């Protein structure tokens, strides 16, 4: 058998892989373009991608400043919300009474549209930056609480008996067995909470109209600067995809070490 000429085939193979992974995304973009061309939507209503790109390159400062703020608030809120959710889940784990009270409440809140609380929280706390942060903390809290609680309860089979036989104290059992076995669930919560953190930060900024990407989006939309509005969409998507990819990468890295 003669050896495969590796070099000329490589780009072709890469193209094939890319096509098999991204044909769905490409198809959607093609349909979108076809829809715009066929229905003949006005250029002012829906600008060309080129115009959006030009606005992004022409005014990088505005985009960077607002995107940086949104990203910072979303990341900080996500971390604080995850911490708070974990602490409450651990407290609930330590007492059957607390767990009996808090677990159904956690279930209730994860079955209601929490995003609808944004206007309420904004009104209670006033229109400023700490409100955006508080909203992201609250939105990130629920998945962290629900998944960490579930993780604290699923111990590897037999491990609990082993710790009891070895006469481990409650504290040793907690730090050496219960907490480590909750890590995979915690990483799932982190991955699930990352995109909503960015979204809720943007929605809060959009509704209050103070600053950040959401504000930029709102002012552009109300001033009929459609290139700016779509430019904001592009930046928001990039941020959100980056956060999600980071969370996914972190989850895989941690799980690989864990198993």
């Amino acid at each position, binding site marked *: 058998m003669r050896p495969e000429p590796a070099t000329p085939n490589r780009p072709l193979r890469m193209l094939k892989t890319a*096509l*098999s*992974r*991204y*044909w*769905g*995304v490409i*198809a*959607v973009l093609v349909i*979108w373009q076809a*829809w715009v061309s066929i*229905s003949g*939507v006005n250029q002012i*209503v*829906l600008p060309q991608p080129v115009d959006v790109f030009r606005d992004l390159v022409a005014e990088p400062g505005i985009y960077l400043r607002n995107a940086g703020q949104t990203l910072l608030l979303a990341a900080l809120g996500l971390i604080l919300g995850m911490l708070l959710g974990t602490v409450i889940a651990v407290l609930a784990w330590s007492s059957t*009474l607390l767990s*009996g*009270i*808090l*677990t*159904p*409440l956690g279930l*209730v809140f*994860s*079955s*209601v*549209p*929490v*995003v*609808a*609380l944004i*206007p*309420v929280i*904004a*009104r*209670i706390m006033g229109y400023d930056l700490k409100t955006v942060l508080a909203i992201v903390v609250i939105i990130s809290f629920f998945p962290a609480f629900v998944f960490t609680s579930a993780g604290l309860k699923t111990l590897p089979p037999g491990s609990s008996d082993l710790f009891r036989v070895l006469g481990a104290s409650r504290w040793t059992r907690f730090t050496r067995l219960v907490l480590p076995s909750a890590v995979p669930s915690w990483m799932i919560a982190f991955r699930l909470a990352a*995109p909503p953190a*960015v*979204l809720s930060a*943007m*929605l809060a900024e*959009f*509704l209050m109209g103070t600053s950040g990407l*959401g504000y930029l*989006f709102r002012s552009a*939309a109300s001033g009929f600067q*459609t290139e700016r*509005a*779509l430019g*904001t*969409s*592009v930046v*928001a*998507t990039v941020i*959100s*995809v980056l956060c*999600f*990819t980071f969370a996914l990468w972190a989850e895989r890295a941690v799980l690989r070490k864990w198993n």
Partner: protein
Amino acid sequence: MIALSQERWRGIVLGAFGVLLFLGLWQLIGVNRWAGLTWPPLTDVLTFLFNPSRRALFGRAMSASFSMIALGYVTGAAIGIVLAGIAHLVHPLRPGLDRLASVVHAIPAIALAPLFIVMLSREMTGMAIAALNVFFVIYVATTSGLVASTAAHRDLFQVFGASPVKRLMRLDLPAALPAIVSGLKYAVPAAFIGAILGEWFGSSRGLGLLMVSAMQNFQIPLLWSAVLIASTASLLVFAAMSVVEHLVYRRYR
């Protein structure tokens, strides 16, 4: 009389106590104005909500929002199940569909709003975002459920020469039903979120519009009422789906 274990009863009592504690705390904070004037007591919100003069206002908003939520839910679920079926039947298409679902999921809804407003209308934007949210949940649930049929059953269908479509309809889809129903349950709040935030982008009706205009105009009881209606409705549908899920699990597992 259904016999419940002592543990189960304890759970129900504690859970009810937790919910009552939450509602009591809401009332207490409102009455004493610990959170200022923007936190009304629960009783004030309920009085406002059930005042007969507001029945028309809330009725209109509810029928607008709920019809969009229902339409988005059904559309999203149908697309999710059909695409998952296609990914299952035509295996080479699977990576592309998986990637499409995760890209759609990672794009913040606020970024898609301008497109939907132009391509559909301001009124239909909520429906479209709800459908996208539901699609993602159902697609993931269905693709993971479709591989749940056992190898012995698959071999049996193979031996009898069943066509792939027949196998999907008679074996894989019934085996996936529990996973799909669980997905349908978790898709309920996702549909509500999608429709409500879709209405924030300039819709002329619906609960989302009520929330935004009440927030901007300091109509605190109205704001809390709209949020309470949306949350209660989502909770009720979620609870109903939990019952369905329980029945399906008992039948199919």
